Each structure stands twice: as C-alpha cells, then as structure tokens.
C-alpha cells in the first residue's frame, strides 16, 4: 500500500493569522464570500463550497478559570472511512493513493448525500448556472491541494503557515509527533489531545487540540453515521439481493404455474379459482 500522508494542525501553535484561508482561495481560485457580521473575529460560520478552510475563534474559560482564545484551521478531515465517499451514489468521491478524499466534479450530480452525511460538515454544494440559466450543483471541499501534491509541493495552506502550526508529512511520523507534542503541552492544556478519530478509521487531517473537541465545536466521537452504514452496508446489498431474489422467485412461480396449468388441462380460461 502506498504511504499515507497527513496534514498536521497543531492548534497550539496557530496565531490565527488566517493566511491559510487566503492561500487556499488563491491557489484554488475561489471567490470571496463576504458574510454578515458574526459577532466575533470569525469570518464564516463554517466552511463552504467556496471557502474550503475557515479559521474558528473560540473564547473559552479553561478549567483554571483563565481565558483561552482558541483558533482552529478547520477543513476536510480526509477520513480513512469517509462517509462522503460511502454515500455518494455516483462514485464521484474517491481516495487517492496518498489517502486523500477527493471529489470529481465531472461526475458529481449535486445530490448532496455527502453534505448530509459528513460527520464534520465540511463538504458543501455550490450552485452554478449553465448558459440557459439553469441551476446545477456540485460538491466541493478541501482537496488537500492534490494538484500540488502531485507536483511534489505541499498544500498551499501548509506552505503559507508561518508558525509551523501546520505541517504535511507521512502519517505515522506525524502521529508520533502529535503524541509527543500533546505530552509537551499537557501542563498548560490539561485537556490537550490528538484528534485522529477512529470512528472514521482515523483521518488525514490530524489535530493537536488544546481542549476537548467539543470546545472547538467538533464531535467527541465522530463516526460514519450508523444510518449510512446500515444503508450502504446492509440495506443496499440486501435490497439488491432481494430484488434479485424476488424476481427469481416470481419467475420460478411463473414457470411452475405454467407447468401445472398444462398438466391440469389448461384451465386458465375458466376465470375461476382452482377450488372445487
């Protein structure tokens, strides 16, 4: 198996400069999306189809009663078991050999199943208009700058991050680095932890968080939605089998029926039941 890579985000080194947001728009040629005033320094409530990473700002009173001002670069997690990939009916979403989860907009039909099932709410639909003014939609999210990775570059946001809050590297190395980092900062942030949730098989955007995930608005135990598992791993295969099975049963019944009818002297014309 090819080596997996991850984007490492050590939020405790982030100073909230938001260069990553601009770098992403710049590299990926994304339009600005001015929002209404949100009441904090945060610019967008969440990532959108045109804003693939958003820096979140949280004012949090910590266990020692001190104020923490917590920043987090929020973007797609590139889950190992990606719910979005699982539910996409058109197979528009796939994994790259480096472990990234990417959307093929050529194939995407804008159904939004991915948007509804992502446990992190980081994939969204963008509405376009074709030349006839007809609207259509495509799913977009952080691509991990796959086009850059292919050229041996690092993601634009990582390259621009001046504090080293973000790095890009081999998964295993980064995980040990993250674990080491958490040990270093435990004293200052007793709730510090690595965020690499196993409910989605681990992710390819791995965080060192200073606080519990919920403080950052992240799910504590995210997983591929049970409904999606039941849907795609049970209902769908069973349904397919059943459709096949019923069709076969009926075909069988039809043949059997014909067969007995012939033996019984072709009573199909009598219009009545086979009763006495």
């Amino acid at each position, binding site marked *: 198996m090819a080596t997996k890579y991850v984007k490492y985000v050590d939020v405790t080194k982030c100073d909230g400069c938001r260069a990553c947001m601009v770098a992403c728009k710049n590299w990926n040629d994304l339009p600005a999306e001015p929002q209404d005033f949100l009441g904090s320094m945060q610019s967008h409530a969440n990532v959108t189809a045109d804003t693939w990473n958003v820096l979140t700002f949280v004012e949090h009173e910590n266990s020692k009663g001190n104020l923490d001002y917590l920043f987090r670069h929020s973007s797609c997690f590139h889950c190992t078991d990606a719910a979005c990939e699982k*539910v996409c*009916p*058109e*197979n528009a979403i796939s994994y790259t050999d480096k472990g990234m989860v990417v959307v093929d907009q050529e194939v995407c*039909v*804008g*159904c*939004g*199943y991915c*948007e*509804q*099932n992502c446990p992190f709410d980081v994939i969204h639909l963008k509405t376009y208009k074709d030349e006839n003014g007809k609207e*259509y939609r495509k799913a977009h999210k952080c691509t991990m700058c796959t086009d850059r990775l292919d050229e041996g570059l690092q993601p634009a946001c990582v390259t621009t991050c001046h504090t080293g809050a973000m790095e890009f590297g081999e998964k295993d190395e980064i995980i040990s680095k993250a674990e080491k980092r958490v040990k270093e900062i435990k004293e200052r942030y007793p709730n510090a932890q690595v965020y690499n949730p196993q409910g989605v098989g681990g992710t390819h955007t791995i965080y060192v968080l200073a606080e519990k995930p919920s403080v950052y608005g992240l799910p504590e135990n995210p997983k591929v*939605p049970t*409904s*999606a598992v*039941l*849907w795609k791993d049970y*209902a*769908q295969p*069973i*349904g*397919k089998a*059943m*459709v096949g099975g*019923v*069709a076969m049963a*009926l075909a069988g*019944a*039809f043949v*059997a*029926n014909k*067969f*007995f*009818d012939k033996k*019984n002297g072709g009573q*199909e*014309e*009598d*219009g*009545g*039941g*086979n*009763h*006495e």
Partner: protein
Amino acid sequence: MGVATMSKTHNSQLQVKRFSKAFVWAHAINGIAFIGLYITALPMYTEFFDWLYPLMGGPEGARLAHRVLAVAFILPTFIFLIFDPKGFMNWMKELVTWKKRDLQFFSEFVKELFGFKSKHVKQTFFNAGEKINSLLQIVCAILLIASGFTMWFPDAFPTALVQWGYFLHNVGFGLGFAVVLGHIYLSVIHKNSRPGFTGVITGKVPAEWAKDHYTEWYEEEVKKGNFPDLDDPKNNKKKGA
C-alpha cells in the same frame, strides 16, 4: 395481455362494479408513477443500471423525473380520498378488520400460487392477501414519501433525520420492490387474478368471478340489491347449463 381473450371466452356479459372511478384513476396514476419512480431510481440505486441515465437525460434528468413522479405518486391518495371518500373509508375499514378466515386464506393461497389445488376461503371485499398487500404498500409508500421528503428538502429537517431518511428510502426501495413485484404478479400474471386486472382498469369485474373471490362482499351487495344473485338460475347460464 390476456384482456382480449378473457372477454370473449368468459361469461363476462354480467359485470359488476367493483372499483369507483376515483380508485381506478388513483390506482393508475399511482401505479404508473411507481414504476417511473423505480426506473428513475434504479441507476441512482446501483451502477449496474447506470446505462439508464442517458435515456433519462443524465443523472440530473433522472433526478428531476424522480421528483416529478414523486408528486404523481403522492397525489392519488388524495384523488381517492376526495372523490370516493366512502370507498376510501371502506378500504381502511377492511384493512383493520382481521378475522379467522383471513388467516386461513394464507395456507390455501400458497398452494394456489404454485398452481396446486386449494380450498376456497370466503373473503370480503378484499381478500387477506390483498389486505396484506395494501398494508405493505401503505407502509412502503409512507416510508418512501416521508424519507423522500427529507432527501428532497434536507435543509428543512434535522441532519439525523435526513441521514436516516437515506437509509429508510433505500429500505423502502427494497421492500417496495418485493411487495409490488408480488402485487403485479398476482394481479396481472397469475391467471386467476386476471379479471381483477381488468377491474382495476375499468372498475367492473365479472359477477361470477367476484362472487367466487369475494363471496361475503358479493353476498352482502346482493342483499343490498346492488348485485344480481348468481344462484338465481336466470342469472347463471353456465352453472345452470
């Protein structure tokens, strides 16, 4: 398929009214929509049917059609309810009344299905099988419609509901497939039900067939003076012959 033959080989001059116009229309629209929904859903359901997309104007076309058909699928209930409220209530009543004979029906039904000899169990307007069918159809329809709406308007529902919607819709697909296939088989292909198929299109069925299949109902209607009494010889040439 067998309609033409039926009318000429059978003593069909004597027809009785089984279904109201409202039901006939409702059923037809409903049935057509249903088939359409299936066809449009197939390529969404599995890549195996992706070849259907080009026929429907691509994935977008299929999805649009699916939504149009979804509306067509929901409408008939209202047509039936508005134009034939009595029939509707009757149907509902039938569905909730279960007696011993309804259960007996099944053992015999299985035999009948595969062409074995079976004993006839007296039935009311709907036989027990049809009642089961109705119930399953209704459950399925509610399932598909409810979940369909959450999928259609995801922003109007909590995410968890939408997520479960996908699952339920999918289950509905499987379940509905089985039920409807059975329903269609029995009502169209299975020889003994054929008059019923004509009935669901014209509203009328041969009196004799009706009496055979839905004896209790038929006799009740006779008592009310709505239907001819087939035991009266002038009404039953075949038996009397």
